[in-house]
């Protein structure tokens, strides 16, 4: 009557949850930003997102083949490569040529993830590693911003160096750099706060619409795919530093709210910094990680040469994540054992 009895360690039941469901949740969270991107940048968005996703997945498959993985397609099923592809696409300018997007995706997956041993082993956020590579190689392409398709003529179409331009649109943060140099003109940027809500501004594909990113973040929080620690820490620390600068000289430094709504800050807080693989495990560690990320972003934006800073902040904090984890080791509920 009883054959093939299974024996295994307890527990014998489990929560219906897998890496794949976690990744699908992230993808659903990103759908809002993708819709916004599609609305403002039309065909560009579609081309870039599909290019990045397809080349990311293809790269992972090729890497599996090279590593002589007996089941080269199995690891594709967790959709982590898809998430990387989408995040990379959402963090590049809409006008980026397809070939550059492919190079970025290949770097993200091959160097950012697979050389470390695949999912779970990478030190740096793969999408940010790919974006850093693109920025280093194709600086001009990565800072050329197209005008959102819905934008009408009433907005000033100026590029970052204040020359009139019909096809490009500086990001609010590029303007703010200009304001820092001239110590004036922050109101042009601060006035755009309403446009940042919907996303009618220049910028990377997925970073423009505050509303879409907030909706996506809310979805992830409700689904408990991410917890509140990292987003809260990033946003709080960034706004504190932005507020200090703003209070010192409101003519040179834009308002904290503008800082929070532009330049991929929300994309970072909800989708990039919360990448579990490259963020600390413990609650205390998450706060340190988030505060550090927010602080470095503001340091770069206010003092540094780059207008944005999310990418470098995340990569730098990724590098110290193992240290944070070691430093904030959990103490058991009953205290340390007396050995």
């Amino acid at each position, binding site marked *: 009557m*009883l054959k093939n009895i299974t024996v295994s360690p*307890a527990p014998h039941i489990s929560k219906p949850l897998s890496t794949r469901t976690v990744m699908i949740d992230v993808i659903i969270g990103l759908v809002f930003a993708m819709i916004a991107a599609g609305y403002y940048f039309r065909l560009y968005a579609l081309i870039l997102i599909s290019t990045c996703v397809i080349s990311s997945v293809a790269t992972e498959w090729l890497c599996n083949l090279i590593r002589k993985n007996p089941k080269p397609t199995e690891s594709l099923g967790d959709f982590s490569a898809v998430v990387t592809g989408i995040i990379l696409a959402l963090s590049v300018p809409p006008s980026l040529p397809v070939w550059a997007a492919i190079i970025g995706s290949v770097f993200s997956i091959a160097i950012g993830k697979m050389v470390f041993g695949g999912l779970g082993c990478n030190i740096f956020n793969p999408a940010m590693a790919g974006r850093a590579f693109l920025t280093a190689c194709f600086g001009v392409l990565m800072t050329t911003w197209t005008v959102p398709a819905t934008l009408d003529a009433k907005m000033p179409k100026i590029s970052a160096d204040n020359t009139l331009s019909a096809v490009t649109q500086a990001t609010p943060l590029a303007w703010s750099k200009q304001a820092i140099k001239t110590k004036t003109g922050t109101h042009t940027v601060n006035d755009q706060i309403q446009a940042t809500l919907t996303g009618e501004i220049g910028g990377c594909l997925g970073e423009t619409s505050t509303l879409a990113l907030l909706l996506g973040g809310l979805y992830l929080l409700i689904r408990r795919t991410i*917890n509140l620690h990292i987003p809260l820490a990033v946003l709080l620390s960034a706004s504190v530093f932005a507020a200090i600068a703003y209070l010192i000289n409101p003519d040179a430094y834009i308002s904290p709210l503008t800082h929070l709504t532009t330049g991929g800050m929300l994309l970072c807080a909800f989708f990039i910094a919360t990448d579990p693989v490259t963020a600390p495990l*413990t609650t205390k560690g998450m706060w340190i990680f988030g505060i550090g990320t927010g602080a470095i972003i503001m340091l770069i934006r206010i003092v540094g040469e780059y207008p944005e800073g999310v990418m470098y902040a995340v990569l730098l904090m990724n590098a110290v994540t193992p240290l944070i984890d070691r430093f904030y080791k*959990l103490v*058991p*509920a*009953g205290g340390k054992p007396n050995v």
Partner: protein
Amino acid sequence: MKINTKGRLSFPGGVHPPESKDLTCESKIRPGPAVKQVAIMLSQHIGAACQPLVEKKQAVQAGQLIGEADAFVSAPVHSPVNGTVKEIALQSHAILGRSMAVIIDADPDNNPPKLPCSEFKDGFDENKYSAQQICDAVREAGIVGMGGAGFPTRVKLEPNPQVPKETMIINGCECEPYITCDYRLMLEWTNQIVAGVKLAKKAAACSEVIIAIEDNKPQAIEVMHTALKTHENGDNIRVVPVKTKYPQGGERQLIKAILRKSVPTGGIPPMIGVLVQNVATAAAIAEAVVTGAPLTHRVVTVTGEAIANPGNYYVAVGTSVGELIEFCGGVTEPSAKIILGGPMMGIAIADLTTPITKTTCAITVLTKEQIGKAKFAGRQTPCIRCGRCLEACPEHINPTKIAHAVKNNLLDVAEDYYISACIECGCCSYVCPANIELTGYIKTGKIFLARQRKKMPE
């Protein structure tokens, strides 16, 4: 008076597995099978194993002492049936692998089924017995913690002048899914449990007793509460509902939830003046003290979707799992997983001759479909460091770090992350999205460490 049956008291961490208690929660405690043969394990408790006191072919009576040990931390074992000793041999043991057991052939003509004790009425007076009498009766009856750990109850009860016990918590949480034996006990043997609680309180000289019940058992909370009202004579015994969450019934978690105190890591509750007893143990204490009967039978929940007639049975210790499953109509699915205990902490067994011990609360038989649903049937994927195991861990340790240290044979790292603090509740494995058997690795690591220590001189 209406009692509030909602409990908010809880501990940080934990999980909410599906309860699945409706299979057996309405099933009254019925007598178990009339066994042909029993195998009494000589080691059914924490502590020194017993030495057999009987020989092959010797006739034994029900309740006769058949094994005893001189060590302080130990409990004697008794025969549950009239019959003859067939042999003293190795037998499959759920935890120890193989262990010595006294195998007794029951006399088919002279073995009336043992019925639950009917001595207990309202208004039990524990003052007829002195504390010493109670402790002696508990020791002679071989009572051990019946919630699962099997720590000899006498050792727990006896007052220790260095650390006086202030509070006794009676554990009626039954947080494991599927199991309902403690629930039925509270409903049906209410007076016996109350008597046992009073006796234990007197023996341990506690000033306060809290009966903790999870708030998914409102009926049990009410019944116990009413029973205590009837017995009311300023005893300072009360029922406290606690939040339904796994592992609420773990004694460290229960103490945290009710008293807001932490038991030191590697320590035991008496170190902070607390004593935790299971409700089944309380019932056994009452029976042992009042009637002098040893612990030879216990209530076992036979449950799971693959069992034809799930229910709660009053079973002789030593009955084989296979016999009990046959008695419940056998299994309905061709392939199954047989678990001694509940699905979260129970041990899957392969040998159906494994006997019931004093600590076996339940036999859970899961279907092939359910095992398939459990993700462990699938492939383990890499850890994505999501931290769900850290959130779920009621002991606030880092399961993924420890498990990966054990996997890579870095036992020093595992110790550095407090592997010894793990209570093996299974919450980490339950929530892991990457299908990693964290609890399994941690258990393995603990065994490796114990072996290492044995090899090394002190």
